[in-house]
């Protein structure tokens, strides 16, 4: 427990240290070069932030692919489609075994659709290449279950969580080569046949900074009035925590 008096004392100390530092800077400014400087008193104060402390936060990147299922409006070229996230994740440790957390992220979902007779989203016109790219801002909430005793380390864990995202832009991108050899690339925005709000569940299996995830979208991508068959509900990939 840290009393107010201690805090004041600490602040006085820091102020005092700053004064000494400034004084020394003045001296060294014209003379000596400080090669090593360590404040040992400050160093002995235990932090509350850390991979296995009360609070921990970090940025992460994520790369995954949609997994095709049978109820889609187009067969997805898995290797050429992707989900990419860049986010910030916070974790509040409740016990060595359990933590709660949230994340906020920017996400790009890119569906590269196979051009065959089964493609009916967004239309049946065939192109050389065609993709739908959803740009999202999202929030996630998760439970984290850690396994094994550990020190100040994220460790091995299982996350079970939910996410919700706002699709602020959908782009329909096509590429075609005309008979005369010219190439045409279209990039159509301002579309209104998508659902702006998406949500789903996510499961992650993590090993320190390396995390494998699988997500299941519970919401529809397309507005019901358009009666479009859905694109894949499932995606899976890897995340890397930047810590």
């Amino acid at each position, binding site marked *: 427990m840290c009393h107010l008096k201690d805090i004041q004392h600490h602040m006085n100390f820091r102020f*005092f*240290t700053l*004064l*000494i530092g400034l*004084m*020394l800077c003045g*001296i*060294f400014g014209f*003379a*000596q*070069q*400080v*090669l*090593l*400087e*360590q*404040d*040992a*008193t400050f*160093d*002995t104060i*235990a932090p509350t932030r*850390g*991979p*296995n*402390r009360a609070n921990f936060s970090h940025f992460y990147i994520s790369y995954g692919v949609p997994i095709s299922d049978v109820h889609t409006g187009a067969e997805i070229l898995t290797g050429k489609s992707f989900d990419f996230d860049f986010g910030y994740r916070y974790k509040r440790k*409740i*016990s*060595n*075994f*359990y933590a*709660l957390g949230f994340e906020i992220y920017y996400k790009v979902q890119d569906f590269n659709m196979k051009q065959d007779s089964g493609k009916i989203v967004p239309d049946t016109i065939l192109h050389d290449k065609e993709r739908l790219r959803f740009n999202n801002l999202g929030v996630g909430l998760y*439970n984290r*279950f850690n*396994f*094994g*005793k*550990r*020190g*100040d*380390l994220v460790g091995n864990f299982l996350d*079970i*969580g*939910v996410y919700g995202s706002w699709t602020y832009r959908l782009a329909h991108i096509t590429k075609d080569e005309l008979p005369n050899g010219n190439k045409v690339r279209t990039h159509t925005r301002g579309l209104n046949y998508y659902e702006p709000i998406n949500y789903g*569940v996510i499961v992650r299996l993590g090993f320190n900074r390396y995390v494998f995830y699988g997500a*299941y979208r*519970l919401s529809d991508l397309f507005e019901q009035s358009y009666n479009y068959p859905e694109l894949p509900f499932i995606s899976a990939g890897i995340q890397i925590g930047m810590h």
Partner: protein
Amino acid sequence: MKIKKTLCTVLLVSIACGYHITYAQQTDYIASKYLVMFTDKDGVEFDPFTYFDVKTIERRIKFGIPLDDITDYPVKQNYVDAVSKMVDSTTQTLRWFNALAVIATTEQLASIEQLPFVKEVNELNSKAVLAGVPTDEFNRNLTPYNKEMLEGQTNALGLKEFHEAGFDGKGVRVAIFDAGFPTVDINPAFEHIRKDNRILKTHDFVRNKEDVYRASGHGTMVMSCIGGKFGDTLIGLATGAEFMLARTERASIEPFSEEENWLAAVEWADKNGADIINSSLGYTKHRYFPEQMDGKTSFVSRAANLAASKGLLVVNAAGNEGSGSWKYVGTPADADSVLSVGGVDHQTHYHTSFSSYGPTADGRMKPNVCAYGHVIASGKSGLEKTQGTSFASPLIAGFAACAWQSNGNLSNMELFKEIEKSGTLYPYFDYAHGFGIPQASYFIDNMKEVDATFIIDEYGDYIKILINDEYVPADFDMLNFEDTELGELKKVPYKEPKPKLFYSIELEDGSLETYYVVSVDQKEVLEFKKYDFRPGKKINVSFKGYSTSYEF
């Protein structure tokens, strides 16, 4: 829709149960390896003369250590048998902790905990970090720069003084705990040791076999820094010492290990007559928090202190976390009776950035001393440039072997203190260098007299640190690079670095508030206002081997 409903239900249940599950699982062990500690050794018989090597007996008699105590007694066999029947397998039986390391399921563990002779169960799930990583550079034939570096790593400790006086660690037995010793059985750097059959014992505690000449080459390099030599060039100081090699770590790139191997190895070292243990390993964030580095929390620290109480000198690398988030020494470098070794840069001769800092969590000074953290060592197939406190530690272990040979009447802890006193900074210390680089001359001349190299002068409300005129540098060379014909920078043998002055602000309780290293460019190095310091505080200063203090 059915799938969606099911998923939603699972999710909601998991969130709702989260808190409940966490507390329900607090005592539910999920990992698989545990240390089962027993209540007693009642009725166990023990004969030290049949168990210990004769050198262990001699050491204990010489230093007045009881020939045996309860920690030396074996674990009760009926306890071991009873637990062994209840688990999948066992790994180590540990006398000093009266414990058995087991691999067990949660259910098995719950049953074991009910046994009346089980005192407690601790999870063993830690990983060790080798305190050094080989760099890419590899050379059989050393460049002039690397040759000078190699000579520097031993000369900085006083190789010539020791060897001219005939001290090369002869008769001193050094046990090395590491991740493997490939090629030690064929490597020319150890030919002089093999020729005299001075590798007395080997044991692989990971595989429970005698062959240790495999796996990571880290141990090979560490051993070379104790007693290796390549041709006429010495890599370490104790070329005449005897060796015991214990493989306690598993992997080469990111070593995974359990502390019980270290615990078993330290018993093995004591049993077989080791005088010195070198351990270039540290346990940090995989199991512990920095505030637990108090020398009492970890099993390895407690085992290291026990080893010291039985007359062994334990030398351990401080660690390479100085520039990382951990920053502080690992364990067992935090143990009170462990000689913890930090690293200095071979060019600047002060703290190298990766070397872990002290103090310990309970405020004790660590590291105790330091040595080169950038070295030339013999790897699997030749001389390599490498870095890490892993290699500073064996340099000191080799130094300790020579020092002990020079005065065999010293007990292990007396030797510990004498090595500290021989440091270039002593009695000055800080939490990056300890007492500095130990000097062989201290053990040869048995005294350390240094004339004053500076004065602390009072001028009214000020005090000033003024160095003697002969140390005011007229000219110096900061960069150890020169232009090649191609216009690239090329490293060249370093010139005399700028003089360094060490100073610290000490609190009334003897701990340090701040500490510094500054380069000296002029006569008047520092100036302080007296009223900035409350009475009782001290300024400690060390320069060119001379140290003194000013108390406010």
